[in-house]
């Protein structure tokens, strides 16, 4: 599939490689998700502050069994991925995408491939990450972000000054490096929940 592949309607063709896709997937819980008609006022409040579609999401309904734990997770997640300023959001999504592919989280990969494509308005980097995150990136900056994301994911205790130097050499401030670190680290959290409390399923 080439970068410019389009369907007859002019919509970009989906990117499908190595078991990953940028198409929208569903997710099925292995535990019993909360039933909305049995939800407490606190559970409903936390669902609504977590994600716009959480009342119909098996994932959020499962996590809503512990509403206060979900509340603080969502506050961290939303501030890390959506807050203005600092590292551009497309680059936070690239970090999330590389971690998700490295961890083998097919569901998170599909969501964050789409987010990157929406923000960057292109899919070439996504194709490269699906092929091999270790060499992926259409620029020196993207390659440095991908390599840092893999290092944090695979060998956190061996992180050293040498892992920071390439980011600083590209002009990233400490605030931007921390933004990237947060985005990469929180996908260590998000992937583990998605991969261990349920599984991705194709859209019906």
């Amino acid at each position: 599939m080439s970068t410019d592949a389009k369907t007859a309607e002019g919509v970009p063709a989906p990117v499908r490689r190595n078991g990953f896709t940028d198409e929208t997937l569903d997710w099925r819980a292995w535990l019993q998700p909360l039933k909305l008609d049995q939800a407490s006022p606190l559970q409903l409040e936390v669902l609504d502050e977590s994600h716009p579609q959480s009342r119909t999401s098996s994932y959020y309904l499962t996590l809503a069994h512990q509403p206060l734990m979900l509340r603080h997770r969502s506050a961290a997640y939303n501030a890390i991925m959506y807050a203005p300023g600092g590292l551009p959001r497309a680059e936070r999504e690239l970090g999330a995408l590389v971690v998700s592919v490295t961890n083998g989280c097919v569901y998170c990969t599909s969501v964050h491939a789409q987010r990157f494509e929406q923000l960057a308005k292109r899919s070439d980097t996504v194709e490269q990450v699906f092929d091999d995150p270790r060499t992926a990136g259409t620029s020196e900056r993207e390659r440095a972000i991908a390599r840092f994301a893999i290092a944090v994911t695979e060998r956190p205790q061996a992180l050293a000054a040498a892992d920071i130097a390439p980011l600083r050499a590209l002009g990233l401030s400490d605030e931007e490096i921390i933004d990237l670190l947060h985005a990469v680290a929180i996908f260590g959290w998000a992937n583990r929940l998605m991969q261990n409390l349920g599984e991705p399923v194709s859209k019906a």
Partner: protein
Amino acid sequence: MPPHLDDIDMIDRAAGLEPGDPLHSARRFRAKVVEASQASHDALLLLPVEGLSPADRLRVAAHVCHLAGAASLEQHYVERLADAPDRDEPSTPALPATLTFAAALTTDPRLGDRAALQALRDAGLGDAAIVALAQLVAFLSYQLRVVAGLQAMQSAGAGGTK
């Protein structure tokens, strides 16, 4: 309450950051993240969870940090356990199963499957306790990476700010 510039939270402590350090201030650029990370830690370890006491969750946390080689965090959780009001009460009979689950989840997120959750149910945990356990272990994967990244930044010396 929003974090203050002279506050120290547990990520600062584990990473060796003090007020006045450039990295301590750089973290406060994302005050909401600082606050929510600490609030997650507190909620995951202190809120009542049926079938999984705070002391048992501290045992899980210390075990996870030990396996991951996160020495300063392991020390934090061991010290918290020593001070926990319920430290001398008997552990849940499900503790061995929770430690097995936590080890797999920490080591490789691909290892999880339906059978791993069933093993926790068979050991006596309800679904709400399993969600609490999974959130705790997954959070620790986040926390230990943030601490390790900050330590690497600290060892790289002063960087640029915006």
